[in-house]
């Protein structure tokens, strides 16, 4: 869904896979199986609109690979949704679930629509229609969707309700991202952000840095960023700069306090989409800088927690020499060109699909709890999340060390290796 012309995310995902497959010597059969989704569903969802007209929306569900378990992945609503984007995201979900060692495969889905121009009733019809079209091919044991861009817990509940109506029973494990109390898991809100910091914490240990002696600059101030900052502060770190998108001015700003931001204070001047009120932040004593300035701060850690393609070949040179670690909370924030430069500079990069695997891990926990119809305390969820993410980090780090390669490549090696093994064990290849 990138606006860049000629940018094909699926081709990029395949290229990445091909490179790593060659490095690890994957056999041609496995390569052919894994570089393409196993199955795709393309369907039409007719909806009678509020004005009486009927409109037909196109929907997708791509199940990239489910050798390790049911497919897992979100459903997006976006006007520029393309099948290639969904294919790429489904593939990345396969790798993300595998690197986190979850018993899940990868999937993704979407509907080409713009919720900004749809009433709640129309959105509900789309959700129910999606399930009617593909409900026989998803389920707690097959494919478990979740929210994604411009879908929410409410959308998931409509889908759940439709599924249960069609199947005649309660199947809370068919979908995740449900609200707490309606089958959702405690800890989901914090999970992605906390997961970034669990991996960061382990990286700092390996690099012999005490978190209490580090500073960070963060791009984004949405859910992932806020909880990442929260836990980073809890382990002793100091965030000096945060950037975010200003919807009213249609530009981004960075907000800096050199002796450390006050998270509670900054949250108090932030809207529900992570947009900080510029004037109120200035009144609180924050320096207001250009949006890109988060990248050039004199800090030890950078956390891009917003969107893709933020650290590029053009701006990577502006990263301060003090920076030791980049923890990618967002998906695809670093371009391959920038990655190359970072490697040359010896900056330790925790790749996106490892660092932000906390979210899908907690989704897995939600699935498990839903299937048991027994829900855990917050401490149990977060404790398990910590253990899982820490373990995932060290699995990758060990390979990176042994193979003398980057964490990104090591993460791919671990993930692809696990999926390929599962396919082999099942006798598929």
């Amino acid at each position: 869904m990138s606006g860049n012309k000629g940018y094909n995310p699926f081709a990029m995902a395949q290229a990445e896979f091909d490179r790593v497959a060659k490095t690890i010597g994957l056999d041609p059969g496995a390569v052919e199986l894994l570089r393409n989704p196993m199955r795709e569903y393309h369907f039409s969802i007719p909806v009678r609109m509020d004005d009486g007209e009927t409109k037909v929306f196109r929907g997708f569900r791509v199940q990239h690979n489910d050798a390790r378990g049911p497919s897992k992945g979100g459903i997006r609503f976006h006007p520029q949704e393309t099948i290639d984007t969904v294919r790429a995201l489904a593939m990345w979900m396969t790798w993300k679930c595998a690197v986190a060692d979850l018993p899940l495969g990868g999937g993704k889905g979407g509907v080409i629509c713009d919720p900004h121009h749809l009433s709640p009733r129309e959105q509900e019809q789309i959700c129910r229609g999606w399930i009617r079209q593909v409900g026989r091919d998803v389920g707690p044991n097959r494919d478990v969707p979740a929210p994604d861009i411009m879908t929410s817990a409410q959308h998931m509940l409509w889908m759940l309700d439709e599924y249960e109506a069609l199947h005649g029973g309660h199947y809370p494990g068919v979908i995740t991202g449900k609200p707490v109390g309606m089958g959702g898991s405690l800890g989901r809100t914090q999970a992605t952000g906390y997961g970034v910091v669990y991996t960061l914490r382990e990286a700092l240990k390996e690099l012999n840095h005490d978190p209490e002696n580090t500073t960070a600059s963060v791009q984004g101030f949405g859910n992932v960023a806020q909880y990442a900052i929260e836990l980073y502060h809890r382990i002793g770190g100091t965030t000096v700069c945060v950037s975010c998108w200003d919807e009213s001015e249609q530009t981004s700003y960075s907000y800096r306090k050199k002796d450390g931001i006050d998270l509670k204070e900054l949250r108090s001047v932030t809207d529900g989409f992570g947009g900080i009120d510029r004037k109120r932040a200035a009144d609180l004593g924050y320096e207001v800088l250009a949006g890109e300035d988060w990248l050039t701060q004199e800090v030890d850690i950078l956390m891009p927690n917003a969107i893709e393609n933020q650290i590029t070949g053009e701006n990577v040179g502006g990263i301060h020499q003090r920076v030791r670690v980049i923890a990618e909370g967002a998906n695809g924030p670093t371009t391959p060109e920038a990655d190359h430069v970072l490697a040359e500079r010896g900056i330790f990069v925790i790749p996106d699909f490892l660092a932000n695997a906390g979210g899908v891990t907690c989704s897995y926990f939600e699935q498990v709890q839903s299937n048991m119809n027994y829900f855990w305390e917050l401490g149990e969820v977060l404790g398990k999340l910590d253990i899982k993410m820490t373990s995932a980090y060290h699995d990758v780090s060990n390979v990176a060390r042994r193979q003398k390669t980057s964490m990104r490549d090591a993460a791919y090696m671990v993930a692809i290796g696990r999926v390929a093994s599962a396919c082999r064990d099942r006798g598929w290849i």
Partner: protein
Amino acid sequence: MAEKGKLKIPRFSRGAWESGEVITRIGSGGVGGKASGLWRIQTELLRQLDPLEFPGIQVTVPRMVVLGAEIFDSFMELNGLREEVAGDVTDAAVTHAFGKATLPPEILGDLRDFIGQVHAPLAVRSSSLMEDALEHPFAGVFATKMIPNNQPDADSRFQALSNAIRFVYASTFLSEARDYFKAAGLDHDKEKMAIVLQEVVGNRHGDRFYPLMSGVARSFNYYPSGAARPTDGVVNLALGLGRQIVDGGLSWCYCPAYPAAPPPFNNLGDRMRSTQNGFWAVNMGPAPVPDPMKETEYLVQVGLEQGAEDGVLDHLVSTYDPRSDRLRMGYGRTGPVVLDFAPILVGETIALNGLLRRLFPLAERTAGCPVEIEFALDRDGAEGSDYRLCLLQMRPMAVPEGESRLVPAELGDSKVIVAADRALGHGSREDLLDVVYLKPEAFDAARTMAIAEEVAGFNRTLVAEGRPYALIGFGRWGRSDPWLGVPVAWSQIAGAKVIVETTTRDMAPDPSQGAHFFHNIIGLGVYYLTARGGEGGRIDWDWLDAQPVAGETAHVRHVRLVKPLEAKVDGLAGLGLLRRSS
């Protein structure tokens, strides 16, 4: 032992419980008196001990992880608990609020890893930053929770551990602690709590887990008798968990300089009645009724016959031989037993006493003052040793000093209304206008629980009014066997500045120096007088009964005097008195 400077306790490392350091930490902040005392034992005291000097006994501290006090702050702040415990809240409200609170996320992974590695019983112990300091003992005021940690799944064990941690944090705000803070004149808001997660010393016997023996060794004896000097020290020993001693239960008391000296019992029957007849263990059997906010949830108290069945009495008892009407050292199959540790103390089957005598000067050197050491001993030490002596705590002792001398003749003065030939404390005060005492004519040993409640009622009123008072009663004050005395918790008598215990025919126990209650008395400067009857110890009940009555219940009377009483204690001579001015 307040922390001096920053202790360099290494950080907990996942996966390294058995192979790593004996003492590690999670989180930052102070580690409290208990943990710092253990650290000093590990890094200073034990290094002075030659392991070859006592072959057969390995001396260690148990493996432990300390949760730094910043975690307590984080926990309180995360759950908004400061607001929940502000003001006058009930213990039930406190335990409910803490029970549903979430532990800080930054420690959960380490705790899960820890509990994944440890499959033996654990003691979750408070280590208050004010606790165990010389001036503020807080002994027994905060909770210790023992958990069996034997559930097969890590989730259940993690849940039990989390509950135990929350409970120990909650104990900071229960009424017992609050009353203690008030009595000590301390600011409760300044208290910070670290926690020690420590392996329980012992072995499993059926559904019970306990050590062969626990003990409290003090290098200064407040009540020396016979040829013993105060600096010879005193030791209390008990079968099973140390709770038996620190809660004021029956235990064996002896002077390390004279381990074989017979105790001051009148006859064999007295000895049998006055020695330990039951012991505490961690319950490893079927899960109890869940009560996460109860300190004894996982504890069980059993009789000595269970110890016999478990085969642990060999070194601990003498057996009565009816044919000779004597006690024979060791465990025999016929005849009742007395837990007098004679095989060890007289027969020296285990070189425990020699080891304790060796430890005293080393510990005093480490602490810079007389010390009290809690320990546990069990079989199967490492490295070829038969036994393992684990030092569980070391705290400083306050000893009497300064001018306050009494001679025995003074006790005979006609104005003396309480004369005590055994006294704790040192000094004098002349501000006591209130006396609360148990009415001799109404005293009933079967009603001590009710009496405790009556006393607590008077205490509440007098504390609220800011009136210090003298408390006089029969048997042993403190939480223990209700047949030995009035089983009050410290908070129920926290306003008493002079405590007098006297005896009846049925209640003449010796004061237990190993008990937490005892330790707090000393630390808070409360005078403790024991009037045992006769010239050396007497109470002028007639005078008390003639004073104006300010309140009365079925068993207790509160009188308010026109002129204050003088209380004077000579801790060096062990004498004390309460004297009227006219």
